[in-house]
């Protein structure tokens, strides 16, 4: 069940549109902001609020890679694998991150702290190679900088 606060925020989004269904993506973002990810249960709840079917909400939810339909860690690392970052050392960085965290792309650390995901361009080619943790972009990365950055995310 969605919380009263989530429902209120979704209703506020709905008020901006002529129909309720265009608020689908925003509603999913609201749920994810509160819970870190969107469960099957939450998809059904959002559908009910919007007068949509679960299938219709799922179509939107699964279209966007940054709507997480599986449980993720407390912090999500999006490592950029676009052309610029690839040239500037994405692969070394990815292997290093994987070694430090003990996981591969698409996995979550056993303590539930980090999930490591690839991302096709963070839009900061001038800082390549780059990654994003939660809302923060980290550029000009080298393996040496990694431990310090990670330590900021409990």
């Amino acid at each position, binding site marked *: 069940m969605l919380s009263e606060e989530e429902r209120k925020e979704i209703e506020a989004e709905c008020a901006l549109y002529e129909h309720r269904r265009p608020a689908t993506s925003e509603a999913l973002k609201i749920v994810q902001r509160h819970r870190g990810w969107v469960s099957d249960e939450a998809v059904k709840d959002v559908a009910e609020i919007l007068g949509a*079917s679960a299938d219709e909400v799922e179509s939107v939810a*699964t*279209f966007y890679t940054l709507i997480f339909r599986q449980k993720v860690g407390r912090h999500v690392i999006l490592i950029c694998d676009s052309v610029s970052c690839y040239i500037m050392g994405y692969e070394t960085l990815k292997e290093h991150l994987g070694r430090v965290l003990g996981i591969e792309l698409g996995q979550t650390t056993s303590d539930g702290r980090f999930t490591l995901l690839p991302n096709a361009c963070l839009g900061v080619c001038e800082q390549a190679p780059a990654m994003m943790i939660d809302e923060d972009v980290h550029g000009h990365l080298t393996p040496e900088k990694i431990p310090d950055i990670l330590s900021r995310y409990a």
Partner: protein
Amino acid sequence: MAVLYVDNQPHEIRPHEVGKNLLKVCLGLGFNIPYFCWHPAFQSVGACRQCAIKLFKDEHDTKGKIVMSCMVSAKDGMRISIDDPEAIEFRARVIEWLMLNHPHDCPVCDEGGECHLQDMTVMTGHTYRRNRFAKRSFRNQDMGPLVAHEMNRCIQCYRCARFYRHSAGGRDFGVMGWHDRVFFGRFEDGVLQSEFAGNLVEVCPTGVFTDKTQARHFTRKWDLQTAPSVCVHCGLGCNTIPGERYGSLRRIRNRYNHRVNGYFLCDRGRYGYEFVNSPHRIRQPLLRENQAALRPISAQAAITHLGNLLHSGRAIGIGSPRASLETNYALAKLVGAENFYHGMPTKHLRIVRAMLDVLKRGPAPSASLHDMEKCNTIFMMGEDIHNVGPLMVLSLRQAVLQKPIAEAAKLHISDFEDAVIREAIQQEKGPFFTGVPGFTKLDDQVTQAYRGAPHDIARLGFAVAHMIDPAAPAVEDLPVERVQFAQRIAKALQDKKPLIVAGYNCGSESIVRASANVAWALRKKGFAAHLAYTVPECNSMGTALMDGGEIDDAVQAIASNGIDTLIVAESNLYRQLSLSGFDTILRRIKHLVVLDCLPNETTAWAELVLPAATFAEGSGTLVNNECRAQRFYQVFSPAGDVRESWKWLSAAMVASGRAQSEPWPDLDAVLAALARDIPVFAKVPGITPPSSFRLMGMPVPRESHRFSGRTAIDADQTIHERPPEPDADTPLRHSMEGYPLQPPASLLGRYWAPGWNSDHALNKFQQEIDGPLREDAPGVRLVEPSGGQPSAEALNIEYLGLVPPAFQRRAEEWLVIPAYHIFGSDELSMHSPGIAELAAKPYLQLNQADADSLGATPGQLMTMTVESAVCTFPLKVGPGLPDGVVAIPFGLPGLPGVALPAWGKIRPAQPGEPTGVRQA
């Protein structure tokens, strides 16, 4: 005539094809252009990139540019190339890329051999796979008993999602994911909720969606014996292609009739066929002697026995709206017209006759399903259309888009640009008003609905008619909010193409009369109103066009006049009569003779049972809801003594001494007699060619030229090749041999053309794409308004009166109304396992306030006494039902035919009271 230059050759195209998309125009000219996402019923989106061709500016342009033919309008003088090397190369690359993840599992795929993807792959010359990488794979979903899902075969053409959501209005299926993990399916496993889900099997160009019922007795397309047929599971008369092998019916596919069902069927029509294969089928005549059990006897002994019964004593006959015209006519001739009664509930007969009266008097004609699609304003009275005339839903869904599409046209959007049109019109819909006794699945299309009891719906209709033309009878004491609603409807209906929908759902003749007044008032004002009626059975209109008594009169005659023999043709009296009426017949009649295909409550009491052919095993004529007579042909010769009922009755004529020789030795003879005796059927023989019809001296084969095993099919029993089963009734043959080319449309039992093995071969059989078939024969309409459709000034309309009083709820009694179910209310399809699995379970339904007033909760057993029946069923709470009204499902197995609406009493069931129906 306009000219289109294709590869420098001029081709004439019809003026109205200018502005249509090039793919459609070129296919119509006979060219082969591969395509996936385009479908004539849902137009172009330009998604698959497969139909690429070259477009040239003028005759001097040698370079040209690649365009998607489905997205470009044809223009006079336009120059295109299909065979341009770059276009060929482009199409080959596209299909290679679409095929990257395809599993190439054709030998184990049910679509193999009739697969559009196979055809297109061969057409583009993609014969060698170069991709060495792993293919993506999916977990398939369980989508219920009718449709199988194998997502790995998907090429992402999006047709399934477009059909399911846009055409059929389903909301529990769609497209998930992105990139190379696009998935077409449901949020979670479960039965597809749309009544039209079975069309995915034909809409999908490959084997993602296949027929789950066919999989249990799978046969390739070319091994099936097929013939043109008509669906028997509701009154709309959709055209079908049943396929048989080894004596069992394997599947039903859509048969295109541009006036009726176009490209689609409902799931009851597609999957109801398995009753033909039921292990309970009656395959031999059965006789009961000295109150013993029914025992098989020979056909000759049965005919002799029936002859003896008819020879002595008085006999009457009860026909059936699910039997052919020929059978009903033969029975009426055998017992005499004055002794012939209609085998449908009296209420149904009166409603259908009221409809016929309205359609005969005119001036508003009945609309075909195709006509309905083009209407732009709808007023529907009393119908839960998903459950009483399912395919009409697809037409109504098109009709509500007509006004928004006309608006979109003002933005210079071509009429084939589906995605652009949908973007432009968003959720706009044309005016669609309903008066219904509860919520329906079509409510999301409706502008405004009134929910009331049948009488109040009729009163709303009468009021609308009066507001359009004050000469129509007025309605007294209508509440002010309903007056306003009626005014709104009356205003909206005064448009170019209004459609008035009514039918039998509420069991109300008043609604039919009201619908007539509305349509006639509109005609008088100069608006081209059409009427669309639903009818209960596949031949309700046809039998109602014949003279005959009501079934309750038959009970009266039996109760009072000492009638010895009752012959019942393909009708289960238990479903047509109240329990007491049924009981009267069983107690009073000495000899009960029943012709039917499956055992039921009536055959259980019969003295003589004769095995009747189903639609697939016999030939005959049915008249649909718009009074269109259509022929269905025998698909295969049945095992045992099964034959058409009219053949049994014809033989009985001789055995009883009522004729010297069989009056109707074949179908043509019975049709000729029918046309001679009953003038309204004069055109019925001519709707298909006579049995003597030949093409280049040859009959038309029911088996394809690739039919396998002809010489070996009986090898386990005999080394001799079985001779073809004889067929004296039709120009068709149970054989591979015969006329090898395109027969006339009325004899067309399969679509195949070189290079086109799938249903898409239909392209090659249409005069123009999405138009009539070649040598079209869409059936013959038997009833048109008398005196044609005169101009508004020349009209002299006598409006129908008898405005019913407003519904008053009673203190101790409830108005019981029928609730029809697409899966459950039809008698024969309930013998098909897939349909039976999805069928509704019996219930009593009240609205919340009424349930509260009885202190009852959902699921609690309630007992209702109505007429002579006591029913104990669980309570369902249904929103939208009017106060004081209770709904019970109609026609579920075991439920007797109570004439609804009727007044009944309800109370909570006592402990230990058994569920079910019993006599009071």
